[in-house]
């Protein structure tokens, strides 16, 4: 890949007291690429993603977006740079409806500075119809919606605003089979549009079906970064659990390579 990476994270560092949550990590993401970020709980992957989404400020290192150095001190900075995040908790305000949630923090306003409900409603209807034609409850508070519908709102919010990079934290963990398929289709569609995606997941099936590369973290460090066709599930599991590839990996890969 010779093009400029969408995102370059260079030598990122984050520590809490003596604990190194992210230990000098460097990571790139290219347009139209899905990168799986794996690791067991506490491996530092969530921390790293929170740094990229502006929710956490790193102690050191540099982030570049399309070659330009950026500094995020709050989530709005990252969103302004085209980096959107779908959190595992979805980060929805339960007492507000789909329209209010979709535009939360970026409300459209009329000339007089009032909330432009008509425009926000129409836009929400459009974007939700693209994701799920059956979505009708635009004015219901989101706490009364199903898990799948809530997920759709969180996704809609992340893709509506000229997104370049999408961070998805366990996007299918709370979903049923048909909804999971919908999310998988969406990821493929976004990739085709040239959006770069970080997929944080525990689900090996999702990872191998959707990702172009996998990055495995262990104790705050990147212990493996591989094209998906270089590794199998056991290799990845070994990286996650032991922090290293199985002993026979290079032999196996060399043997397979000519074929």
């Amino acid at each position: 890949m010779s093009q400029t990476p969408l995102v370059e994270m260079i030598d990122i560092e984050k520590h809490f007291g003596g604990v190194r949550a992210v230990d000098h990590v460097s990571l790139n993401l290219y347009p139209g690429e899905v990168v799986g970020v794996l690791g067991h709980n506490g491996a530092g992957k969530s921390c790293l993603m929170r740094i990229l989404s502006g929710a956490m400020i790193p102690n050191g290192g540099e982030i570049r977006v399309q070659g330009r150095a950026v500094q995020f001190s709050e989530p709005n900075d990252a969103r302004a740079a085209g980096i959107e995040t779908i959190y595992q908790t979805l980060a929805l305000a339960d007492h507000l409806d789909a329209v209010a949630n979709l535009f939360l923090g970026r409300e459209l306003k009329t000339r007089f500075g009032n909330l432009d409900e008509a425009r926000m409603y129409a836009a929400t209807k459009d974007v939700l119809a693209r994701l799920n034609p059956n979505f009708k409850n635009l004015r219901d508070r989101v706490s009364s919606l199903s898990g799948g519908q809530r997920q759709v709102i969180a996704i809609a919010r992340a893709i509506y605003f000229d997104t370049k990079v999408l961070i998805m934290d366990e996007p299918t963990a709370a979903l049923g089979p048909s909804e999971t398929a919908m999310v998988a289709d969406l990821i493929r569609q976004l990739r085709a549009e040239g959006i770069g995606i970080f997929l944080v997941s525990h689900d090996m099936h999702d990872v191998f079906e959707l990702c172009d590369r996998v990055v495995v973290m262990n104790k705050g460090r990147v212990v493996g970064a591989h094209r998906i066709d270089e590794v199998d599930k056991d290799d990845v599991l070994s990286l996650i659990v032991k922090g290293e590839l199985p002993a026979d990996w290079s032999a196996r890969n060399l043997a397979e390579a000519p074929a």
Partner: protein
Amino acid sequence: MSHAAKPVGRFGFAGMEPTSAHLHRLSALLTLILLIMGFSLMAQSFFTVNNAMTVLLQTSVIGLLGLGLTMVILTGGIDLSVGSVLALSGVISAMAVKAGVPVAPAMSLGVLAGAACGAFNGFVITKMRIPPFVATLGMMLIARGLALQLTGAAPISRLGESFGRLGNGALFRVIEMQPNGFPRVIFPGIPYPAILLLVTAIAVAYLLRRRQIGRHIYATGSNEEAARLSGVRVDHVKLYAYTMSGALAGLAGNVLMSRLVTAQPSEGVMYELDAIAAAVIGGASLSGGIGTVTGTMIGAFIIGILRNGLNMAGVSAFIQQIVIGLVVIGAVWLDQVRNRQ
């Protein structure tokens, strides 16, 4: 993605008033109507124009405090300092008048002092990370202490007729001069405090429903972390809510002191509890994200009418406390029962 403005049928409330909140307000409104009917049967002088205006006047102070508290409670916070801030603001306005400042700017100064107290609350809560209960409890003591210290605990009187106009004046008052030289009040007029309450309520409702800050107030109380991650400046929102609460307490203080034409540093003790009760009776949730201006207004009038009606029926002030206490518990209980269904 189209940004074309398409007219849609139902918009503006943005789902902030789901059915259960509607129900709560409906039942609160029903309670209010029942109270009015009940008291009308018990005391003949209850259901009269004169008494209605009295209730309006009495409710306006609690109503103003309740509006401020609604904003704070919506963010998931609480403001225990409004009763004391009310006293401090009134005292500062009166002192300014005594110092020769004309009434209008003097009163503005009092409201500003209230806003400053609120801003201090907001600062302590957002920057020093002190829980709202503790921060505003501190301000409750600070503001009361300041009011007492500034006045030497003595009321400031002889403030002049113009100081009393806000609290005692009325629009459309019709007075007839009788042959014996005494005036006869045909229509007492709509008290200025009631008009002030109405205007303020409309302004706050507008802020909460139509402006971004209102949307963010609901979002902050609904899910603070989600709001923060969505780019809502949660600290800014809270600072705004507490400052507004302080300013409205200042306004209420000026109304009250103007009505008495005396600045009483010991006025307003426990008013914060009436204001909180008004919001809660009106359907506001103390965990944040739920509540409306209309609800709080209904709640304030329920308390005002209970007080007034029980007075007219000759019920002692002690029993009144008990009744209002039971009403608050009952209102919240009803809400819980409904939410469990």
